[in-house]
């Protein structure tokens, strides 16, 4: 760092999922220890995170909404965007599977079946990365679920949305980590997984420092480099193994974006 005392401060706008999973609780102390920066994590929806970046209210973003991110970069709000990791999404629903999702191979087909059966689908509806992915999936399936009676918006985080799905006996798109954490309390099963489109890819974005003189460009750079660095990547690769028997995230630094699609 350098400059005024606030140069040590770094605002990280990130999605609730990283906060909820507990990954940040491990990564941030490691970074702070290594670099001397103090990180203020702000866990919000991806939409809000990007909006904070756009306004220069955050220095660095860790988000998973590829299309919105690309728009963000195209509009020149960010200076660098690097691949960090991914986890994957699954579609869960009631074991009796009224729409017959289990039988479908592609995610697109699963959604078509749900729509055709008019089976209830719970959407987070909060413009989070999960929600954005879900929207992209619907679009790919050529369906506009907005306003349909079976399409329910929970407006809440992943855990609560799973709860709604459980109560309302609906399908929902969830990240694996949250589902694993709540599995015991839910009467929902994984009905669909594995399709490459269900990958949830996290990028770290440094906010354009020319927005205002407050943006901490060096800190952002340091944090981004830390995330794609060896130590962080190792932490990411191990995170969750102790609790679920399998890691929740796959480190992807340095990989080609296209390999993940």
């Amino acid at each position: 760092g350098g400059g005024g005392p606030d140069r040590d401060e770094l605002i990280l706008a990130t999605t609730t999922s990283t906060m909820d999973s507990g990954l940040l609780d491990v990564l941030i102390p490691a970074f702070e220890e290594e670099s001397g920066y103090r990180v203020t994590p702000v866990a919000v929806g991806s939409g809000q995170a990007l909006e904070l970046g756009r306004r220069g209210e955050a220095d660095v973003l860790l988000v998973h909404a590829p299309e919105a991110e690309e728009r963000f970069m195209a509009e020149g709000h960010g200076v660098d965007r690097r691949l960090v990791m991914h986890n994957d999404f699954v579609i869960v629903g009631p074991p009796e599977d009224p729409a017959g999702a289990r039988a479908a191979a592609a995610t697109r087909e699963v959604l078509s079946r749900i729509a055709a059966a008019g089976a209830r689908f719970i959407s987070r509806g909060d413009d989070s990365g999960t929600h954005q992915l879900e929207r992209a999936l619907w679009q790919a399936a050529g369906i506009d679920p907005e306003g349909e009676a079976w399409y329910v918006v929970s407006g809440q985080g992943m855990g609560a949305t799973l709860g709604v799905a459980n109560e309302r006996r609906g399908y929902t798109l969830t990240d694996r980590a949250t589902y694993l954490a709540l599995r015991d309390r839910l009467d929902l099963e994984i009905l669909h997984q594995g399709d490459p489109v269900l990958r949830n890819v996290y990028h770290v974005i440094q906010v354009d420092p020319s927005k205002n003189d407050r943006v901490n460009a060096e800190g952002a750079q340091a944090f981004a480099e830390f995330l794609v660095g060896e130590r962080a990547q190792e932490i990411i690769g191990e995170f969750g193994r102790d609790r679920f028997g399998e890691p929740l995230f796959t480190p992807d630094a340095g990989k080609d974006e296209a390999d993940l699609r």
Partner: protein
Amino acid sequence: MDLIWDGLRQSFWLLVRGDARVYEIMLRSLLASGAATLLALLIGVPAGTFLALRRFPGRALVLSAVHSGMGLPPVVVGLVLSVLFWRTGPLGDLGLLYTVRAIVIAQTVIATPIVTGFTVAGIQALDPRLRLQILALGASRLQLLWLLLKEARLPLMAAVIAAFGAVISEVGAAIQVGSIIRGETELLTTATVLATQRGDFGLAFALSVILLALVFCVNAVFTLIQQRGPRP
């Protein structure tokens, strides 16, 4: 700051254009919170009067509990009610979860301690001889209650206002037991939260402004009732 102006402008247009969805949400918020406040009055006022007038062992404890209820985190209320209303929960069969009725129940739970606590304070603050005077005028138990409440009008109306304000502005419990189901359980506050999460600060402000305007109108009526009558 531009955001705030933006919000004001947007709220104005939402109302003027007569956005059906906005009006629907407004109405639902008003009805749910109104119902909850009414229920809280029906429970809290008799309970509060009882606590104010009767002495019994453990009264201080009950009163502390009521007062703690004023600090019942909406999130906790939402959580506990959710657990109760889950399909596998003890009240699952009622199918209340994610309905407006669940929201009304949650808000009633939040509002009742407020009404009770202030009823106790308001009635206790009255001259105790007033009770005798009212009885001496030939009041039945119910008439006594009513007249005492009229005497304690000022703090009581403040309590109603506070209770209504607490529930109409609350999100934690409403989201948990009601979710934000478009056309079913969406409220002004929950819609605001949603807009915030989406980063649509303009809409969030617009909805807030509408909520505040609504609260202001309702409270202007309450305030007039409260302050009615000449006070030298």
